[in-house]
């Protein structure tokens, strides 16, 4: 059953730009430009794109706080804007850059208040809170007012707050932004565990691709308001020609005109002593054998394709394109 459906979803913003001393011209800027997307129940999708691509705008339309200019959208079978209050019971939202907790209240009281707001039966609330407390290690700061929490602690509180009413869809807008490595790990493993249970559909926007690699099998890339990729991370590598690289340290400088059949030189460094080859058609074993036969090798390493590189290439190719 599809949990989220978007058909031809658009959002246009009207901006006024200076066009002369006093004159202002209206200009229509499409922030989301015809997005079609279906997300099934239990899926975890990564929704990524460069700054200003339309990620947050899409998320706002999905959660019912922004009306679309055109197209249709349905989440949990509801139309977000007109049925916002009903939808609120079914979804959880975490915005990495803003807080849904009460600044002056300790987490424990915020959670108790959320139980009343969402009208969750006490036993259910207690069970979910106990699980979050152990998984996210909340016990040390449950009685600290939110304003005194560190960013990592607050984010763990935000995640708990978004889950206490048992949402069917969880929207996460940059949940790991600004967190240190340890907190990021904690958030990721919590989300991974959540996804493994399969009862929550998860939509994650982020700039940290490690989040996506760790959590999402499906990746949707959006740029200039349009979906430019929808598929697995492997499909992305295939499509954008990601190749494994062989990095070789040589005893002597690389001779001019050196070639390795089926591979191409991508970088030459350290006075021509260090060379990187992209393995286009040749296997790693054959490439190493051919190299050992023709040049004195001191050291070598094989580098897997990096999602950051692929996405950077994807962003620039789309932005630079017509």
């Amino acid at each position, binding site marked *: 059953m599809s949990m989220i459906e978007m058909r031809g979803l658009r959002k246009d*913003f009207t901006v006024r730009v200076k066009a002369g001393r006093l004159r202002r011209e209206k200009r229509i800027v499409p922030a989301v430009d015809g997005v079609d997307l279906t997300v099934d129940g239990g899926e975890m999708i990564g929704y990524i794109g460069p*700054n200003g691509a339309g*990620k*947050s705008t899409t998320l*706002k339309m999905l*959660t*019912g*706080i*922004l*009306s679309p200019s055109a197209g249709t959208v349905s989440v949990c079978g509801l139309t977000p*804007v007109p049925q*916002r*209050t*009903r939808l*609120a*019971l079914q*979804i959880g*939202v975490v*915005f990495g*850059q*803003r*807080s*849904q907790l*009460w600044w*002056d*209240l300790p987490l424990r*009281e915020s959670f*108790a*208040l959320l139980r*009343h*707001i*969402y*009208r*969750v*039966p006490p*036993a*259910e609330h207690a069970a979910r809170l106990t699980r979050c407390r152990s998984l996210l290690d909340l016990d040390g700061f449950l009685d600290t*007012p939110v304003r005194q929490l560190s960013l990592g602690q607050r984010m763990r509180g935000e995640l708990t707050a978004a889950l206490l009413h*048992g949402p*069917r869809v969880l929207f996460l807008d940059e949940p790991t932004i600004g967190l240190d490595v340890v907190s990021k790990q904690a958030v990721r493993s919590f989300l991974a565990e959540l996804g493994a249970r399969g*009862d929550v559909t998860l939509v994650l926007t982020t700039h940290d691709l490690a989040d996506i690699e760790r959590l999402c099998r499906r990746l949707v890339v959006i740029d200039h308001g349009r979906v430019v990729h929808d598929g697995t991370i492997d499909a992305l590598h295939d499509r954008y020609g990601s190749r494994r690289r062989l990095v070789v340290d040589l005893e002597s400088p690389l001779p001019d005109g050196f070639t390795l059949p089926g591979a191409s030189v991508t970088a030459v460094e350290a006075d021509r002593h260090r060379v990187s080859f992209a393995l286009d058609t040749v296997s790693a074993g054959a490439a190493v054998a051919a190299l050992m036969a023709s040049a004195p090798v001191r050291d070598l390493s094989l580098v897997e394709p990096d999602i950051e590189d692929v996405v950077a290439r994807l962003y620039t190719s789309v932005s630079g394109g017509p």
Partner: protein
Amino acid sequence: MDRLDARVLTISPSSPFRESVTTFGALAWSGFRRYATYRQATIAGSFTNVVFGFLRCYVLLAVAAAVAGGRPGGYDATQLATYVWVGQGLLSVVALWGWTELADRIRTGDVAADLLRPVPPVTSYLAADLGRAGHGMLTRFGPPLVVGLIFFPLYVPARWYTVPLFAVSVVLAVVASFACRFLVNATAYWLHDARGPIMLWMLSAGVLAGLYFPLRLLPDWLTVTLWVATPFPGLLQTPLDVLVERDGPALQVALVALQAVHCAVLLAVCAAVQRRAERKLVVQGG
């Protein structure tokens, strides 16, 4: 879907009304708790109320002494002193000034979190404000009253129903004040920055609600117009007039009824404005 079914099974015999009351109560309690965190601010605020109470009281008593007959606006000296000291106590209960929370949340985009909850924003802000007022009643109302009692002869109500009627009037004043502040703050939905309207509100509310001087000192036609056409006198002057029994029993009750009408209209306007805002709303920030 099985998760939803589970929820239905575990819930006790459901009573939507009781649940709504519980939710409202929990939100009000959160408002109370939030203000209870700032104890030093409470003490400093009370001290300021008391200092200004002396200033206002002496000014009004001087006016009373200078007026022929000693009854400016129909108040005698004890009624005026009571007007001032109870007014100083009520000031932070009705929170005539200084609430910019909604405007700030609209400007920063944090209002998104309010909209993502299953409770309408007007309801949740009203509940929290009643909690805040409850905290104000417990902590800020008493000190100026006690100081007034020590230093001045205060008016003791003669009618048995005056004090309960005063209590009702205060609750209505809090609701009306909340609704006005909500509307002023809600201009931020369109203006992005509500500092102008808030400033205008702060300048006008004190005068028009009868804080600086009782509105009865104005010409009759102006007083009546203000009372009927605007909610301002209902924010402060009405509860005080009710308490000091400035008018006969019929008018005393009628003034509270008028407050109730204003509250109903204001809350309806708040709900309409909020609906309107949600339709055009652009939540700020990425």
